[in-house]
């Protein structure tokens, strides 16, 4: 019955697979790119922008993959991992590391935090199978607000980070100048005209993406996919489902920690306090826009999704502004990304048990 598929059928099927919302978003981005030169926006700058923003955000989106694979759903608890990254970043500076070394140290220091917090988080998620996404959201929020107190209370002293007047308590924004600003982006940066490509960051992303891809091809990675695909099957095949889920959560958390450090080195600042709040939803919608569903995601989804999402975010303000002198980027971004998440949630997927 499957042999005589006409070309048309296949196109229709693949379009259906692609999903209408995704089609609209892709079409919209293409439209924006086509329009850009006509309304006087500089296309190379725009493309350069997209590439840069891709390089900042890619790993945060990548952090979704392990948990989606193990059936824990979309990682709305991303802020937890981000906090580990922030702890690594601030401690690395506090200990007096500078330059590229501070980046490396930040990663090293963030790792144990990510492992511990990730394990706790994984343990919790194993207790509440089926309700992961909602609880993940609020675990993220609680941890961010808890850390708000901690940023004030922890005995940080580095004058570059604490409030000048009080001499204690971290600032909301900490400049990375002299620390790891552009630590990765600066490596082998290519500048052609208006386009600048942060080769180092892209390579770093590629490295991690390759790592995840490779992991998913190992025995354990295969088990993770199976757990996400059908946990009962996996259990019947002797897999310790809880352990695999825990591993995926720890991986997601660690990736989020690295992700925020990479983001910061591109952005040039550490943002503390309520800043991590905003981080989970864009990452979630990016991977969904890239074609992932609540329980399936690939590296390709990450790359496509991040490009589409960041493309829209960077293109709308310029094109719109030049065209109708109205900056609707924020509103369109919210509607598009939230609409995408809503769409994914209402899909009939086999709910993970």
């Amino acid at each position, binding site marked *: 019955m499957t042999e005589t598929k006409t070309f048309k059928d296949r196109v229709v099927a693949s379009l259906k697979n692609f999903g209408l919302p995704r089609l609209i978003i892709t079409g919209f981005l293409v439209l924006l790119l086509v329009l850009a030169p006509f309304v006087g926006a500089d296309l190379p700058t725009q493309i350069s922008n997209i590439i840069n923003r891709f390089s900042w955000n890619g790993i945060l989106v990548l952090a979704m993959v392990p948990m989606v694979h193990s059936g824990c759903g979309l990682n*709305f608890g991303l802020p937890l991992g981000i906090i580990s990254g922030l702890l690594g970043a601030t401690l690395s500076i506090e200990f007096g590391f500078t330059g590229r070394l501070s980046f490396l140290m930040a990663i090293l220091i963030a790792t144990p935090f990510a492992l511990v917090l990730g394990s706790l988080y994984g343990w*919790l998620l194993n*207790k*509440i*199978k*089926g*309700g992961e*996404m*909602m*609880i993940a*959201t*609020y*675990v993220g*929020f*609680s941890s961010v*607000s*808890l850390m*708000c*107190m901690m940023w*004030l*209370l922890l005995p940080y002293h580095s004058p570059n980070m604490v409030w000048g007047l009080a001499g204690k*308590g971290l600032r909301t924004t900490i400049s990375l100048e002299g620390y790891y600003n552009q630590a990765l982006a600066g490596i082998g940066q290519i500048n052609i005209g208006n386009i600048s490509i942060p080769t180092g960051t892209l390579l770093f992303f590629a490295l991690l993406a390759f790592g995840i891809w490779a992991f998913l091809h190992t025995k354990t990675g295969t088990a993770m996919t199976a757990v996400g695909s059908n946990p009962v099957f996996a259990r019947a095949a002797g897999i310790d489902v809880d352990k695999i889920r825990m591993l995926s959560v720890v991986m997601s958390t660690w990736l989020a920690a690295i992700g925020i450090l990479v983001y910061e080195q591109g952005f040039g600042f550490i943002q503390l306090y309520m800043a991590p709040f905003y981080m989970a*939803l864009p990452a979630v919608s990016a991977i969904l826009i890239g074609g992932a569903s609540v329980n399936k995601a690939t590296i390709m989804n990450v790359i496509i999704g991040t490009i589409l999402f960041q493309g829209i975010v960077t293109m709308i303000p310029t094109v719109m502004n030049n065209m109708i002198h*109205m900056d*609707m980027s*924020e*509103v369109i971004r*919210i*509607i598009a990304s*939230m*609409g995408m*998440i*809503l769409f994914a*949630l*209402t899909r009939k997927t086999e*709910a993970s048990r």
Partner: protein
Amino acid sequence: MKAGSNKYTTSEKKPTAFGTILRQASVPLMFIIICAFCIPIAGLSPSYLANEIVTRMGRNSFLILSLLIPIMAGMGLNFGMTLGAMAGEIGLILVSDWQIVGIPGMVLAAIISVPISILLGIFCGKILNKAKGREMITSYIMSFFINGIYQLVVLYLMGSVIPIKHSSIKLPRGYGIRNTVSLLNMRQKLDNLIAINVSGIKIPVMTFIVIGILCLFIIWFRKTKLGQDMRAVGQDMEVARDAGIDVERTRIISIVMSTVLAGIGMIIYLQNMGNIATYSSHSQIGMFCIAALLVGGASVDRASIGNVFLGVILFHTMFIVAPRAGAYITGDSMIGEYFRVFVSYAVITLALVMYETNKRRAKSESSRELRAQQDADEANAAGKENV
């Protein structure tokens, strides 16, 4: 109410009753302890504290009561109540542009908000019907999505498509609404309509009467056919469907009712505040109301009117005293601010975790029974052998 609420909530088995009660009461107890600890440290005068609590009760109770109906219908905590709040705000913005003031202004805003709430509620309900089993996260995302639409309307369409006359609420660029819209001519008009002063504490009697009417409505509603259907749907959708109840429609109605009530609640809330933070008033409101309800001892699948009032009192006492107490202990006023934010989120997290683990606990109960039966069997068999 007490008797009524007990009668209609699921009963507990006797052996575990005490444990269950303790578990249910654990959150309120924790808050009583926090408050008892913070109040003396904060050093606020009792009359100030009482005044604040009474004001906040009047301000928030109506909004929180709007959460009860979806819980009854088994749809969990309605994070989508924000939708109603936005409808209420749109009503108020229009009314204040038309310069309708005071109580008539509030009534008119409510009348305008209702159809908007109904439309949003139907939309939300339909989406939630497609996402059964993950209503909460969906309604939560829904609140963001509609917030985007709301911004589109308020920031771009008002003034350009929807006529807005007064420059006092319009952005200088000619369209869009300012960040704050003053409701000075509506401020506390409802509260002050019948206000009495009991030893320095101002009691907004009229507001309480309105809240009381809503409570009576909810009690009455539970006795209606629709209320009965909602409770049936909330407990077992399949059984309800087999009995011929239109499950989908019932769920949508429960969300619509919640949204409409939230819209009116928002108007009451804002008349007390005296101004609208156009783009942020609603974004926090859902979270605070849910936290307050949970603090009152409600859970995801069970909530009563008593929970609402206990929750308002405890949650807001914490809210008032925490910053002062935090400042006193650590010398930094922000600590207390962050602390109360943290507590709000932590309470919701805790309630969600408890709800999910309880669901699983119920499952493992049956195998324990089986094991006991087996043991009994064996004892029997052994007994026979001995004879």
